[in-house]
């Protein structure tokens, strides 16, 4: 590819507000001392001050539940009441704020549940955040676990950031350390 053509394009991208800004999210799923452990369903989204959803960032749920894997291009299996989507409404706030409007699984948004550990996700100029008007937002992390509890953690941040900023929060039951790092 001719580099001369690429340069003005990059310059134009740089001039768009917030396009170069980045949001890093770190979510810890804590080790729990329980007899029967199921991985939690976790949703991460960005909320406006009026609590409407500004951007859905990720949803971890049991995408496949039983049954053989489907061949690519195969007809969608009939939705069963035992499919993993059955428990998505248990992410109560996420569900009411916009989860119920989405069709699952959703490319770039949904993925399988995760084992205990800390997970880093970065959202930059190709994420839904790129289109956000400047302002104060909240990052919400909601977790719900079968045979377990439910927890919601939120962190406020300004977008786009004027200077690199880190906000930390600590879950009490279903979530561990949550961190948001915003870079200009």
């Amino acid at each position: 590819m001719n580099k001369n053509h690429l340069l003005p394009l990059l310059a134009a991208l740089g001039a768009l507000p917030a396009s170069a800004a980045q949001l890093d999210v770190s979510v810890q799923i804590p080790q729990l001392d329980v007899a029967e452990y199921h991985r939690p369903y976790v949703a991460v989204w960005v909320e406006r001050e009026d609590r409407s959803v500004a951007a859905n960032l990720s949803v971890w749920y049991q995408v496949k539940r039983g049954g053989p894997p489907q061949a690519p291009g195969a007809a969608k299996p009939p939705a069963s009441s035992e499919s993993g989507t059955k428990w998505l409404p248990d992410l109560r706030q996420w569900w009411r704020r916009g989860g119920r409007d989405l069709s699952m699984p959703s490319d770039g948004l949904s993925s399988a549940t995760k084992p205990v550990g800390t997970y880093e996700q970065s959202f930059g100029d190709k994420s839904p955040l790129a289109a956000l008007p400047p302002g104060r937002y909240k990052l919400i992390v909601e977790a719900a676990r079968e045979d377990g509890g439910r927890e919601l953690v939120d962190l406020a941040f300004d977008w786009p950031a004027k200077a690199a900023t880190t906000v930390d929060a600590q879950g009490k039951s279903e979530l561990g350390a949550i961190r948001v790092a915003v870079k200009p």
Partner: protein
Amino acid sequence: MTKPLPKLALLLLAAALPFAASAHKGWLAPSKTVLNVDQWITVDAGVSTEPFVRDHNAMRLDNLVITAPDGSTVPAENTASGKLRSTFDLQLKQAGTYRIAIVNEGMNASWTEEGKPKRWRGTADKFAAEVPAKAEGLKVSESQGRLETFATAGKPNDTALKPTGKGLELVPVSGIADLFVGEEATFRFLLDGKPAANLEVEVIRDGTRYRNAIGEKTFKTDADGLVKLSWTDAGLHYIGASVQDARTSVPQAKERRASYTAIVEVLSP
């Protein structure tokens, strides 16, 4: 009377109870109200002094009407009536909000015929044919009762929530699938399709058996029939209201009693 009442008479009595001047309340207890498409719910229905306490009578399901999100009527499945509660299942095959309603409309008449007391219960269109026009000491009353609950699969919609314009009804202003502790919910009450102003609304939360006070709260609708309800705890809630007036279907009836009950589920935020 020495003979025990026939079963049918008992059933009729049970059906009339929530609309008679008694303390009994009809209720529906859905297993969940906020779900995803294709999920099942099961609903119990009963009549008792305190809502949701299964200690008196089963609710009759003859007048059960389930309206699907597209406005069509769908049948309940696995219906059964026990001694203390009836039950039925429903699969939420469509995305949107379902209305589950038990609608009782009827008239009660009593008079004296050849020195013996006579009683009649039926509908307004059969009144003229079944009640003698010049009955002695005729007393007629009319009742319209509506008991509802709602279940939503996926994204809510309001097609099934459209008021019928008859009797006392509730129209959710804030989302019926979005009731959370700490948030105010707004509902509009209508009487014959028009705002029911200055109406007293009683709210009782489930679990009365496990506390010492029923803890009912009363609210009042404003001039536009609007009432704002707030919740301190999650759970099923009974929302009841009733009015008595003289707007009857037949001139012989002096009084009309319209009652409305909604059962809603409040979630923790």
